[in-house]
């Protein structure tokens, strides 16, 4: 029960901030995909930068565990391409479709229904995928610091610098 309340409260904070950042809208999501409006990229990268520093700090203090998804090239690449095409048509991702509905953009409902159907279809074909696509290029639970053999703080610093340069360029171009 407590864990459900944590989920609800965390979601409310996140949904509130997503709405304040104006990233829930179709026009913003398509704006990013059409390279016209980088609001979403600014929001996401800012979240990643703060999250990255905080998570690695807590990990170094031994307070938390990382949750690493295993890398599977077949699933990641084919799935990523499909996700991108579908995202471009819908204009919302799974989390933002719930948030868009909260903002009154009720075309997100078509998206929510479609995503439920897509999930059901995936469950049907999962046994076949598991023995085919999902066996291609299994690299396990790898991370960039581990693959490059560098301290995670070097990667974190490099990511921060790269993101700040990108932000500076966005602002200069008025994106």
């Amino acid at each position: 029960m407590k864990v459900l309340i944590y989920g609800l409260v965390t979601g409310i904070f996140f949904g509130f901030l997503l709405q304040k950042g104006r990233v829930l809208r179709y026009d913003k999501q398509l704006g990013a995909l059409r390279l016209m409006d980088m609001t979403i990229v600014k929001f996401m990268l800012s979240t990643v930068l703060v999250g990255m520093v905080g998570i690695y700090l807590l990990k170094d203090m031994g307070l938390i565990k990382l949750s690493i998804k295993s890398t599977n090239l077949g699933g990641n690449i084919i799935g990523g391409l499909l996700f991108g095409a579908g995202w471009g048509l819908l204009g919302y991702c799974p989390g933002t479709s719930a948030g868009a509905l909260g903002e009154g953009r009720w075309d997100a409902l078509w998206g929510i229904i479609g995503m439920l159907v897509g999930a059901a279809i995936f469950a049907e074909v999962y046994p076949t995928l598991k023995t085919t696509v999902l066996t291609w290029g299994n690299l396990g639970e790898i991370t960039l610091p581990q693959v490059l053999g560098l301290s995670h703080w070097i990667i974190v610093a490099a990511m921060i610098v790269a993101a700040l340069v990108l932000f500076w360029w966005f602002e200069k171009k008025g994106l």
Partner: protein
Amino acid sequence: MKYRADVGWSPYLAGALSGLVLVLSVLIAGKYFGASTSFVRSAGMIEGLLSPDRVAQLAYFKSETPKIDWQWMFVFGIFLGSLISSVTSASFRWQALPDMWKNRFGSSISRRAIVAFLGAAVAMFGARLAGG
């Protein structure tokens, strides 16, 4: 006035604060953010009403049990948080067609419904395949 109300916060600020919420969530509840697994669980719950035998047969629903968990409540919370934020800042808008869509594809609601539905099904299938 409408324009002033619709400016929102800097995406850098709102994004950075979201990063803080993520870090606190991992520290306090041990939970990282995600959304798409909840659609699998919901699909399983709905299918369970129609055909419980089918759900029991599918291996995918054994690993992603059809039930309400932390992430499901998190996704529901995103809906509520967005509702609270938009209603209290006069930026809530009951809208069937996004402006950009309407300008390009016209005012047919069914056209938007079909494209959004198909896009969503493909996007969710891809997200599950990619593991995200």
